[in-house]
């Protein structure tokens, strides 16, 4: 769950003196959206995003003359003039949860990862977060299927499920129990099995006293007026 395992390394960083057109060229050619700006010692001093760059460029509705003079100005302007100096960072031993909370709360797309000396050692983007959770939960994992099991309300549901599956030598890789969100609902158990023999999965679960639920879209609970 540590960022060190999921961050993108080595980080691509730029110097504050780099001109705005050069930085734009770099973002476009490399398909980046975020560039950490570092000093000579590799310390983070700012973040440059594709949004910063877009707002630095003149609007296409302006006259040709105005655009030309703006572009000439940009040619001479370093990224330090437009980069964000207020930034949010994580460390290699931050967890995915830390990053998720920060990305969500601060509405940013990526977080530079700094070591103890403040040197940029990686970058962790929303895309990296998606990839990390995708691999943790096995979404889209070939050769598997997600089974939804209705919690029967009896004690030790997860123990009973894992025991019966192991007894029947049914491979499974994820077993998640989600508490009920509304008093009228039941808790839901999600089980990722790595077998095509879903018939065997069903009968094993049945043996342990569970029913496989057909997943449905539950209409949103009516909100009080």
């Amino acid at each position, binding site marked *: 769950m540590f960022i060190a395992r999921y961050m993108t390394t080595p980080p691509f960083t730029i110097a504050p003196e780099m001109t705005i057109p050069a930085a734009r060229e770099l973002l476009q050619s490399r398909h980046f959206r975020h560039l950490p700006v570092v000093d000579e010692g590799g310390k983070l001093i700012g973040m440059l995003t594709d949004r910063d760059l877009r707002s630095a460029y003149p609007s296409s509705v302006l006259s040709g003359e105005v655009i030309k003079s703006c572009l000439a100005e940009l040619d001479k302007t370093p990224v330090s003039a437009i980069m964000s100096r207020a930034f949010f960072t994580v460390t290699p031993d931050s967890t995915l949860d830390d990053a998720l909370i920060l990305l969500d709360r601060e509405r940013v797309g990526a977080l530079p990862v700094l070591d103890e000396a403040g040197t940029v050692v990686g970058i962790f983007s929303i895309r990296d977060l998606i990839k990390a959770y995708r691999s943790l939960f096995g979404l889209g*994992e*070939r050769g*598997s299927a997600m089974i939804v099991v209705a919690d029967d309300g009896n004690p030790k549901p997860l123990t009973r499920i894992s025991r019966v599956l192991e007894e029947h030598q049914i*491979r499974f890789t994820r077993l998640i129990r989600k508490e009920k969100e509304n008093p009228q609902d039941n808790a839901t158990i999600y089980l990722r099995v790595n*077998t*095509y*023999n*879903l*018939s065997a999965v069903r009968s094993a679960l049945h043996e342990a006293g569970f029913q496989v639920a*057909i997943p449905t879209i539950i209409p949103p609970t009516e909100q009080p007026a």
Partner: protein
Amino acid sequence: MLPLTLIHDPHCLRHDTGGNDHPEAPSRLAAITGRLQKSPLAAQTTTAPSRPAERHWLTTVHSEEYLLRFEESCLAGKSSLDHPDNQLCYDSYEAALHAAGMGLLAIDCIEKNPGRRLFCCTRPPGHHAERSLALGFCFLNNAAIAARYWQEAHGRRKVMLIDWDAHHGNGIQAAFEEDPEVFYLSIHEHPTWSFPGTGWKEETGLGPGKGATCNIPLPPGSDDPAVMKAIAEQVEPALNRFGPEALVICAGFDGHAADDMSGLRYSSELYRHLGECAARWAARYCDGRVLTLLEGGYHLESLAAGVEEYLTGLATLDP
């Protein structure tokens, strides 16, 4: 009603999946032939044995390394290949060769007698098998091999595979993803809830094959109207756009409500409709050239009933 030919071979019954309630059992084929013998279709149905597919046709889809590994696993007495799901026995390689050969034999027959209605009792099934991977009870990708054979032995370059097994045919998609001449269309239970977890609707082919793959995932609990809607809104327009010269139907019967290998809720009657569709499309687009290969279907009674319904639809003179 048109005459029907059932390609059925004793080799395919010798593929022993170890008992223990393994769903892909020889009793599947016995259920089909038993049902058809008692069916009104019996009078117009002839049966023919298969022939083993030649190695150079297998390697149009599979790697040499994989074929050797598969054959060796059988001869060495191993009990499975790549995953415990894929149970095998000494005779499984030979059975798989005969299953893959069914498509080739049937295609030769169709080319000689266009409009002939053939159904191949392929076992082991094929659509999950990839180039170098056995998956989901499948070892050789019978449908993919047949499509390549149709192209290369008979010059029918534009082949369309329509797969309505409850599960996505990942192996067929992988084989033709970059090929603009082979269109793969699959209607299956949504990959979030279903094996093998592939077949997203966003996948439409790669590179030159862009636009020649179509996945139609249905949510668990989907029944006949969902399939009819998919046919009207997606399958028929795709057929129209592509204009196939030959049609391969990958017929899996595990979407039936009684089959617990999927959460789909199809009725037996749906398969008659699918048979009529296959006959109509074959007549409309490819001078009657339609090949049907068995894929899944594990609830014996509904499998047999589904095949009978499908053949009734397929043999309809004026669909």
